[in-house]
């Protein structure tokens, strides 16, 4: 339902998603026993695998033997060519309390989506938190010497190509309603900001001024777009409305401003400026005014992305950034009140770039480059666990986690 098959074709190279079957018990996690599903063995096996993977990736559960788990799942599947029905019961063993009892229906091709919905409802029922299993990730696919946009499920499955321009299409960003993606396209030679409607496949050009048009990102209410333009002399920050009109210039510097990201309240915009001689994160009011420098160390911080945790979340809003330390890129987090210091969260000696927050404000997707090829990884910032998504032939970069 999210992306119609008619506008997409599956990437040929994507298949299974590998995660080691860890059942370690981390403090604060619920132990969860998946007993599986009765019924058609093939469907039941797939449903079980997807459910286990979703629960593991959620970060809230450690998978445990049914006999010793705090929560235990049981269920059944029925299915034929016309559709499937998945019934699931989750019980708290000690109290015999039924935490969830539901049936889910879907087409036979939609098994993964049906289970993602079930997984998110289990997360909601047992933790009160919003799950991420039904979300999507857009990314840049390096293909045949060019760069195309693609969209996939959050777990790396169902990747679909979104552009077929045989050009350079980069830096996708989602509209808050998940219906549109804005990005930078070199299809007409010069870098322009385009928008694609995922429901209809229609594209339109939102900004095509002289020079650089890039970095477009929707405000939290979806009504405005911040972006970088160089039409007035050097790369500066601007805002415009979602139709591409009512352009307003925010910054006036002799340096370059890029990579805007809206604060959760939509009132300020964080961005990169090298005004101090090195790239650092700055902040400016959405209507302009005096910029405020946010980060001081390390000496190179770029690609800021504000998290937007839901209202009832335990997570606080944070900026994820790409820092450069000793010649390597690492992912770091910045919080207000941290005296300008970015704390590394992925610093493994490889190049890690382009962090983008999941809507739960807890998970990040980022690009890790190994042997000069970039692939996408998920990070749970609470547990620190990284998971590699299925490798994409040619490489994947600049991910954007959808709403």
């Amino acid at each position, binding site marked *: 339902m999210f992306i119609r098959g008619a506008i997409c074709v599956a990437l040929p190279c994507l298949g299974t998603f590998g995660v080691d079957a860890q059942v370690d018990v981390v403090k604060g996690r619920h132990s969860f026993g998946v007993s599986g599903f009765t019924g058609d063995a093939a469907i039941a096996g797939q449903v079980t695998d997807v459910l286990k993977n979703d629960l593991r990736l959620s970060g809230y559960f450690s998978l445990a033997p049914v006999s010793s788990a705090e929560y235990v799942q049981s269920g059944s599947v029925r299915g034929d060519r016309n559709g499937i029905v998945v019934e699931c019961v989750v019980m708290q063993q000690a109290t015999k309390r039924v935490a969830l009892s539901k049936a889910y229906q879907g087409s036979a091709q939609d098994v993964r989506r049906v289970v993602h919905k079930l997984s998110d409802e289990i997360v909601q029922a047992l933790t009160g938190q919003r799950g991420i299993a039904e979300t999507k990730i857009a990314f840049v696919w390096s293909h045949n010497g060019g760069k195309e946009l693609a969209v996939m499920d959050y777990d790396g499955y169902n990747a679909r190509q979104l552009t077929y321009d045989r050009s350079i299409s*980069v830096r996708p960003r989602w509209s808050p309603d998940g219906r549109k993606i804005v990005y930078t396209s*070199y299809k007409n030679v010069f870098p322009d900001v385009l928008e694609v409607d995922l429901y209809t496949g229609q594209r339109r050009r939102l900004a095509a001024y002289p020079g650089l048009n890039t970095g477009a990102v929707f405000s939290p209410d979806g009504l405005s777009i911040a972006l970088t333009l160089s039409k007035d002399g050097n790369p500066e920050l601007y805002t415009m409305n979602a139709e591409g009109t009512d352009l307003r210039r925010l910054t006036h510097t002799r340096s370059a401003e890029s990579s805007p990201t809206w604060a959760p309240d939509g009132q300020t915009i964080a961005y*990169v400026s090298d005004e101090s001689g*090195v790239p650092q994160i700055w902040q400016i009011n959405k209507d302009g005014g005096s910029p405020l420098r946010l980060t001081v160390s390390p000496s190179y911080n*770029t690609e800021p992305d504000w998290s937007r945790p839901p209202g009832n979340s335990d997570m606080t809003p944070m900026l994820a950034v790409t820092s450069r330390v000793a010649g390597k890129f690492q992912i770091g987090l910045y919080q207000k009140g941290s005296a300008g210091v970015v704390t590394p969260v992925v610093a493994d000696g490889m190049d890690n770039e382009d962090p983008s927050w999941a809507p739960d404000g807890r998970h990040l997707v980022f690009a890790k480059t190994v042997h000069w090829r970039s692939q996408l990884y998920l990070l749970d910032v609470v547990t620190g666990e990284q998971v590699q998504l299925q490798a994409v032939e040619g490489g994947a970069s600049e991910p954007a986690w959808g709403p």
Partner: protein
Amino acid sequence: MSSKLLARTILVGVITAVISTGCHHGNGAAGGNNPQGGTGAESSVPGIGNGTGSENGISPRPVLGANGLPEQGQFPAVLFDYDSARIRPSEESKLEAVAAYMKANPGKLVIEGHCDERGTAEYNRALGERRAIAARDELVKLGVDSSRMSTISYGKDRPVDPGHDEAAWAKNRRCEFVVVTQ
């Protein structure tokens, strides 16, 4: 040579059309408004909807690369220091040669800004643009009309040397110049 030249000729035509049809990308053509903003669907985009993408024509890249320069204006790339958009004194003579050519010949100049791979993607797009603008501003000082020039930043997406060492990086931190005849 013939197929390459043909592609090049077609693509020069494409660029010429982009620049000469009053497109707002022509330097100085746009004011504070956006002529195409909010005009609805771009219905002519092939690819999305059919999923083949194989008839989309030729990528615009070949004419803009180091090997795709038009016959009449082959200029050496202007090189830059790491994370810098300053024109080195040693590169001035290259810009003087470009300026002399432009003053003696018709046509428009496309200035490409490029970066090495040791910066993040979007930051490098801004840095590449600053390099192209620095070269353009220097050419203006040397007497080339700014309305004849436009800039394209490719960030780190189009290295001329695919290597991963200082020798490759030094070549990739550059501006290239493409003369487009009208």
